[in-house]
C-alpha cells in the first residue's frame, strides 16, 4: 500500500503527464504542407475510379498526362507531350513526347529508363484492350471514365512511331479529344514498373503503391487517416518548393475548419457555405474563390404532357424568380445562369437574352397553350448538396411558390441520391432538378452528355430533349478542328436552347478554398482539383 505521501507524488506525476500532453504539438517540420481533405481515395490508381477525392490524391500529385490544363484555366498546355499536330481531317493526333522525364522509385522498384512511347501505349491499351495482360486483376475493377465516356468508340488505335512519337488514330473527327487526354483517367503509368511487379508475382502492388512522373512521390497511406508524399527531386518541371505534402483526411467540414483555425492544416477542402462569412473575418485565413465550371438547372421532361409544349416551358421559365433563388439558396455565392455552360468557358454566348421574371407574361403564355387555369405537376428536387446546388429543397420551395402565382401547383418529390439518378434515366420525371460539373473545359463536355440526342438513350439528358437543328450544330462543332469556328457553332446552339427552353438554367455556383495566410502561391483549379505543385510556405516568425 502506498503511503499518502507516495500517493500524492504519483498523482502529481500523473497530472504533470496529462498537462504536458495538453501542451500544443510542436511546429511542423519545415516545408511540410498539410491539406485537410474530405475523404479517403478509393484506391491509388488513376484509371479505375471516378471521384474527385481519388483524383486529388492520386492523379493530381503523382501523375502526368500527355497534355494538361494550365492550373486555374481550362487552357490545354504541353506536359509529357512537348507538342502535337492534328491531321487536316481531324482524325489523327500525333504527339511528340518530352525527353528526359523520370519516373518515381520505391523500395521495390528503381526505374532503369526515362518515360517513352511504350508507357503511353501501355497506359492506353491497359484500358482499351480486354486481352491486355494487365487489363483485369480483380473483380469490380473497371476503367470508369474510359468506359463511361465511350472512348472505345472514339479512338481506333494508338501507334508508336518511334520512342518519342505516338499517333492516335480516331474513328471519327473529334475536336474535344485533346481535352479528353488532359483528364485524370489519361494519366501515364510506368510500363516497366508493372512488368517488374508481375515478374515478382505481385502485379497488384503496382496499383497500390503508385509510381508516376508527377511532382510528388508516394510515401505512405494510413487508411482514413493520412496520405504522405514527398517532393520528387527529379520532376521534369523542377522540384516543388515544399518538401512534404500530407493529406489529413477529415470527413467532417466543421472539423476541417477547426483544424485550419488551429493550424493543424494549411488548406482545407469544401468549406460549408454557412462558415464562409466567419472565415472571411479571420485574419489568419485567406479565402480564394473561383467561378465554378458548373450549371444547376431544372429540366422539363419534354416527352410528357404538358411539357411537350414549348409555351408551357417558356411560361415556367418566366415565372421563376432566379434572383431570389440566388440570394436565398446560394447566399450570393453564384451567378444567375442564362446558358447551359458557364461564362468562363469559351464559346459562351453572352448575347443570349434570358427570360426575365415576369409572372404576367407567363400567365399569358400558359393561357395561349391552353392552360389558363394552370395545372398540377411533380417537381423532383435534389436530396443532397451538390457543388452546383447547395440546397435542393429550399430551391424547390421557392420555385413552388413562384409557380403557384400562375396557377401551377407543383408537388415536391425526392428520392435517395443514387435512386434519384437511376430513376431520372428511365424518364419517370415530369420536371426535375439536376446539374453538372464540367471535367475537361470543353463546351462539348456540357452539350453532348446533357442535351444531345444520344444522351436521351443513355439517360444523361434528363429533359429527354432531342432537337435536330441543335444536334446538328453540336455534332458539327465536335468535328470542326479550329476553336474559333467551334465557338461560333456553340453560340448558335445556345440560342436554340434558350428559345426551346428544355431547362430553366438556374445558376453557376462559385467555389471556395480557404487557406492559411502562410500558404504562398496557391491557385485554385478550374476543374475543382487541388494542386500543390507551385505552393510554398512563408517562414514563420
Amino acid at each position: 500500500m502506498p503511503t499518502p505521501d507516495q500517493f500524492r507524488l504519483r498523482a502529481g506525476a500523473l497530472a504533470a503527464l496529462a498537462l504536458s500532453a495538453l501542451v500544443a504539438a510542436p511546429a511542423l517540420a519545415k516545408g511540410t504542407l498539410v491539406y485537410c481533405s474530405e475523404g479517403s481515395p478509393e484506391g491509388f490508381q488513376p484509371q479505375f475510379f471516378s471521384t474527385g477525392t481519388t483524383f486529388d490524391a492520386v492523379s493530381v500529385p503523382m501523375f502526368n498526362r500527355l497534355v494538361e490544363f494550365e492550373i486555374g484555366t481550362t487552357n490545354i498546355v504541353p506536359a509529357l507531350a512537348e507538342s502535337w499536330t492534328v491531321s487536316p481531317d481531324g482524325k489523327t493526333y500525333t504527339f511528340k513526347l518530352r525527353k528526359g522525364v523520370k519516373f518515381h522509385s520505391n523500395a521495390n522498384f528503381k526505374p532503369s529508363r526515362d518515360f517513352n512511347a511504350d508507357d503511353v501505349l501501355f497506359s492506353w491499351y491497359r484500358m482499351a484492350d480486354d486481352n491486355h495482360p494487365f487489363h483485369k486483376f480483380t473483380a469490380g475493377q473497371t476503367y470508369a471514365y474510359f468506359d463511361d465516356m465511350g472512348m472505345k468508340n472514339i479512338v481506333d488505335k494508338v501507334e508508336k512511331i518511334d520512342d518519342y512519337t505516338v499517333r492516335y488514330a480516331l474513328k471519327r473527327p473529334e475536336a474535344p479529344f485533346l481535352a479528353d487526354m488532359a483528364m485524370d483517367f489519361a494519366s501515364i503509368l510506368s510500363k516497366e514498373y508493372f512488368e517488374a511487379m508481375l515478374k515478382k508475382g505481385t502485379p497488384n502492388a503496382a496499383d497500390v503503391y503508385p509510381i508516376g512522373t508527377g511532382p510528388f512521390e508516394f510515401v505512405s497511406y494510413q487508411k482514413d487517416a493520412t496520405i504522405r508524399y514527398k517532393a520528387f527531386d527529379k520532376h521534369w518541371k523542377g522540384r516543388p518548393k515544399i518538401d512534404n505534402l500530407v493529406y489529413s483526411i477529415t470527413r467532417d467540414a466543421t472539423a476541417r475548419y477547426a483544424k485550419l483555425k488551429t493550424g493543424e492544416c494549411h488548406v482545407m477542402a469544401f468549406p460549408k457555405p454557412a462558415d464562409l462569412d466567419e472565415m472571411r473575418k479571420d485574419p489568419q485565413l485567406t479565402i480564394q474563390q473561383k467561378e465554378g465550371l458548373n450549371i444547376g438547372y431544372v429540366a422539363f421532361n419534354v416527352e410528357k404532357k404538358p411539357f411537350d409544349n414549348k409555351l408551357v416551358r417558356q411560361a415556367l421559365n418566366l415565372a421563376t424568380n432566379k434572383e431570389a433563388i440566388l440570394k436565398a439558396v446560394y447566399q450570393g455565392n453564384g451567378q444567375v445562369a442564362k446558358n447551359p455552360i458557364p461564362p468562363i468557358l469559351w464559346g459562351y454566348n453572352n448575347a443570349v437574352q434570358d427570360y426575365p421574371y415576369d409572372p404576367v407574361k407567363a400567365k399569358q403564355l400558359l393561357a395561349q397553350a391552353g392552360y389558363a387555369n394552370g395545372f398540377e405537376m411533380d417537381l423532383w428536387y435534389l436530396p443532397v448538396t451538390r457543388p452546383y446546388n447547395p440546397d435542393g429543397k429550399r430551391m424547390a420551395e421557392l420555385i413552388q411558390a413562384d409557380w403557384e402565382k400562375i396557377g401551377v401547383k407543383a408537388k415536391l418529390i425526392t428520392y435517395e441520391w443514387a435512386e434519384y439518378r437511376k430513376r431520372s434515366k428511365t424518364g419517370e420525371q415530369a420536371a426535375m432538378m439536376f446539374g453538372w460539373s464540367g471535367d475537361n473545359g470543353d463546351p462539348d463536355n456540357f452539350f453532348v452528355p446533357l442535351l444531345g440526342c444520344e444522351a436521351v438513350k443513355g439517360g444523361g439528358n434528363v429533359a429527354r430533349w432531342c432537337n435536330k437543328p441543335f444536334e446538328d450544330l453540336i455534332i458539327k462543332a465536335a468535328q470542326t478542328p479550329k476553336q474559333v469556328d467551334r465557338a461560333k457553332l456553340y453560340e448558335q446552339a445556345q440560342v436554340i436552347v434558350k428559345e426551346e427552353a428544355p431547362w430553366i438554367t438556374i445558376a453557376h455556383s462559385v467555389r471556395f478554398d480557404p487557406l492559411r495566410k502562410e500558404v504562398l502561391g496557391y491557385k485554385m483549379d478550374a476543374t475543382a482539383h487541388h494542386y500543390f505543385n507551385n505552393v510554398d510556405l512563408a517562414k514563420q516568425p
Partner: protein
Amino acid sequence: MFGFVLRRVALIVPTFVGVTLLAFALIHLIPGDPVENLSGERGMDPERRARLLHEFGLDRPLAVQYASYVGQVLRGDLGSSLTTHESVAREFATLFPATVELAFFALLFAVVVGLPAGILAAVKRNTAADYTVMGLSLTGYSMPIFWWALLLILFFSVQLGWTPVSGRIAVQYDVPMTTGFMLIDTLRAGDMAAFRSALSHLILPTIALGTIPLAVIARMTRSSMLEVLREDYVRAARAKGLPRWRVIVVHALRNALIPVITVVGLQVGLLLSGAILTETIFSWPGVGNWLIHGVQSRDYPVVQGGILLIAAIVITVNLIVDMLYGVINPRIRHA
C-alpha cells in the same frame, strides 16, 4: 461453469443467423444501389454497369445472394469492399485497433469517474453532492454525441488551444504501425513526443464517447448502492463499529457491483455504436468511421461484414461479463 459456457456458445448459432440476416436485409432495404453510387451525374456506361453487377453478384435473386454470402462467411471469407476492392476482413483488422483504443479509454474514463461519483451520490443522498452528480449525469446522458463532440472541439481546441482538433496523432509523427494501437506503437518506437501527441489526441474523443456510459454507470451505481446500504448486514457491520469506508467499500460496494458490471458489459455495445459518430467527427480512423462510410456508399460487404464482426465482439464480451458474476459474488453459480 463449463455447461454454462457450452450453452451460451450454442446460442451463438441462432444469433449468427439472426445477425447476418438482419444486416443483409437492412442494407438491402434502404434505397440506393452500390453500382449506381460508383458514378455521379455523368451516369455509367450500361455495359460497365452490367459487368459490375455481375462481378459483384448483384444480378442474382436476393435469396441466392444471401445464401451465397452465408456460405462464404462460413468459409471465413467476408468478401471485398465494392469501392476499394480490398478484403473486408483486412480493412476491419487495420482499423479495429483504433476503435478498441478509443473504446477502452472511454470505458476507463466512464468507470473511473462514474463509479466514485455514483458511490458519492449514494452515500451523500439528498445533499448538494447527490443532486450535482445526478443532474450532471442526466445532462450527459441526454447529450447528442455529435453536438457534444463539436462543443468540446470548439471550446478546448479552437478557443483554448489545449487539445488537437481531430485525428489520432499529429501529422509530423510517422510512427510505424505494428500493433495498430497508437499508444503502444509510439512507445515501441521510443518516441515520447509522439506518445504525448497520441495521448493528447485521445482526450476529447474519450470524453465525447465516454460521457453516456459514465452517466449510466453513475446512476446505476447510486441506485444499486442505495439498495445495498439499506440491507441488514450493512447495519450489522456498522453496529460492530467498523470504519465507515470499510463498510462502504468492502460490505456494500462488492454487492452493489453486480448490476453495475452488467451495465458496464452492455456499454461495450453502446460504445461501438457511439464510436460511429465520435469517430466521424474526430476523423478517428476506426471501424465506426469506416462503417458509416460503407452505409453511405451502400458497400454491402463492408456493412454486412462489419456488423457481423462487431456483433461477434459484443457477444463475446457479454459472455465474459456473465462469467465474471461468479467471480465477484461466489453465491452466483453457473450450473
